[in-house]
């Protein structure tokens, strides 16, 4: 199986989606200072994961499904969700994707194939396999993309689900975004494969499925790797574990604090906990968004002027999203108990 390189138009689409995720996340982060108190609880950003998310979702087609974790802002934006509704959800407003019930950790947009997000590490992995069973029964060649982090691969849910998915040849692609940290614990501190110097993709071997490691900062590499896994799944040959190596450019999440303490994003754990400033700065130098832009300019797909124009358009789009969200009303109190039961 081989996946064709995306054409120039598709590469520009990929770049645009990466910009949209990055800019959306910057606006979430900025909201802690622009609009203090508006975002509550815990947010988790996808900056650094853009190439991996967009490269993976480039293969999404009608009838496919995607499920993810509490770090979930990026996927629905690529799948077609309105950033206004996504931001309104994060602001707890009635016009939010989930009418203010879910917030940052639980974005869901069923009409765009984004079936749901669990805030419990690893818990969403079997949900993806269940949706893949549904796809297998329907026999329309649909697949399910299951996104989770390296930390989740230490949960029983991960191992149970990989076993049964391989056994049943379910059309599911397990995309493990390995960002090197489980909150403030490095992967080598909690993962036997990492400690032994092996890639985390070797976990696939225990379940007799292909396991591949890819540079998650390179959208075209992710496009090829996930594309092959998607083809394999559509053809009925079962699941693949893709370890997508990325670097999370923000801290795990905003600070955890009781009401009254202004929320904000602290420094990345590499610096704040481990004092590894150089590691973090190297990651910034390898930032996938400018890196892909430079590549597109170099290959002649994009001119710097066109790239700047895309940046302006996306900035405007996300400014509109913030403006919309801040004006959207809160849900009515009478509706507080709606949706507990169907």
């Amino acid at each position: 199986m081989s996946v064709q390189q995306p054409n120039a138009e598709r590469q520009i689409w990929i770049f645009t989606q990466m910009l949209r995720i990055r800019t959306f996340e910057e606006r979430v982060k900025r909201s802690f200072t622009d609009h203090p108190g508006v975002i509550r609880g815990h947010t988790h950003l996808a900056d650094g994961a853009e190439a991996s998310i967009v490269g993976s979702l480039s293969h999404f087609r009608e009838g496919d499904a995607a499920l993810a974790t509490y770090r979930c802002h990026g996927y629905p934006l690529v799948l077609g969700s309105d950033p206004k509704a996504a931001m309104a959800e994060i602001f707890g407003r009635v016009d939010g994707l989930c009418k203010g019930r879910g917030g940052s950790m639980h974005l869901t947009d069923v009409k765009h194939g984004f079936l749901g997000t669990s805030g419990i590490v690893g818990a969403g992995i079997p949900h993806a396999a269940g949706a893949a069973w549904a796809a297998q029964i329907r026999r329309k060649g649909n697949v399910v993309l299951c996104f989770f982090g390296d930390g989740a691969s230490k949960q029983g849910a991960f191992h149970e689900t990989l076993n049964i998915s391989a056994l049943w040849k379910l059309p599911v692609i397990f995309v493990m975004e390995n960002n090197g940290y489980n909150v403030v614990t490095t992967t080598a501190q909690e993962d036997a494969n990492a400690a032994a110097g092996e890639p985390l993709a070797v976990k696939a071997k225990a379940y007799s499925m292909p396991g591949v490691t890819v540079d998650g900062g390179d959208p075209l590499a992710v496009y090829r790797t996930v594309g092959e896994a998607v083809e394999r799944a559509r053809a009925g040959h079962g699941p693949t574990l893709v370890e997508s190596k990325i670097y999370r450019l923000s801290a795990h999440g905003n600070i955890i604090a009781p009401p009254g303490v202004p929320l904000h994003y602290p420094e990345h754990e590499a610096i704040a906990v481990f004092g590894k400033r150089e590691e973090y700065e190297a990651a910034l130098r390898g930032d996938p968004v400018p890196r892909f832009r430079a590549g597109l300019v170099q290959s002649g797909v994009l001119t710097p002027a066109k790239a700047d124009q895309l940046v302006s358009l996306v900035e405007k789009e996300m400014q509109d999203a913030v403006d919309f969200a801040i004006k959207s009303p809160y849900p009515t109190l009478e509706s507080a108990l709606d949706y507990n039961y169907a």
Partner: protein
Amino acid sequence: MAKMPYIAAIDAGIHQEMRRDPSVLYFGQNMATTENHDFVAAYGHDRVRVTPISETAEIGMAVGAALAGFRPVVELYMAEFMLVAMDQVVNEAPRFRYMSGGQVKVPLVLKAGYGFTCGWAGQHTGTLTAMFAGIPGLKVAVPATAADAKGLMATAIRDDNPVVFLHHYLLTLEQGDVPDGEYLVPFGVADVRRKGADVTIVATGWMVPRSLAAAEQLAKQGIDAEVIDPRTVAPLDLQTILGSVDKTGRVVLVDQATRHGSVSALIAADIAEQGFKALKAPVIQVTAADTTIPYSEPLEAHVLPSEAQIVAAVRRVLK
């Protein structure tokens, strides 16, 4: 109407729904391993499958299949096995509809036996009903008769929400009249098993026949007990219970669970708040002792609610 054991009636309920609705799936451990398996033969391996011993994956996959439009029934055998996957039961399946603002529904049935107090010792004998009853988004069915076993299972499968279906292991072979053809028992509608004017007894599962036996003893002593079986504890038919309390003014709540983990404690609180003026005596709960269930037969019998304890409790509320 056909006579059949409780356990067969549950299967009849599943068959009824699988025949009419191709979106119903049935799977679990140690079932469907041969082509002769009743459900495999009828519906095929797409819809009926054996799973590894992986409760988290089984229940989690049921959530995912439900999100994708199917109606899975998970065969879990023992209610305690759900504890292995409690996150999926409590914090995944019942949360997704609410958290998505009503975009999704999660119609699934978790079928599990409970209360197997016949020498199964500490880990396979619990009555964990109350653990599920207080979770918004979950429904909990506890059939006490063969007819209810069929009708509640069918309703559980048609319900658009996650349902914990708890069948009592000690009722497995109890014969009962089960209606032929399509049969559904609504959720949230208690059944008054015995009409009476002097005292209200509320019980579920295996405690229903025990309470009815106690009521027969009491009848010989001239005491007319009403026995109410809520049949589902979430939703709970509080109206029927309060109506009976209005009439009798005296209540005995019988529950096989340990006292502070019992549904009877929840019902007692609701009666105290909403039925206080009708009460002529304090509510009495007859529950299991606060203990792990012992293996040894006399000890096991000693810690469970007995017919004699129910009779004694009724006599106390009538004093």
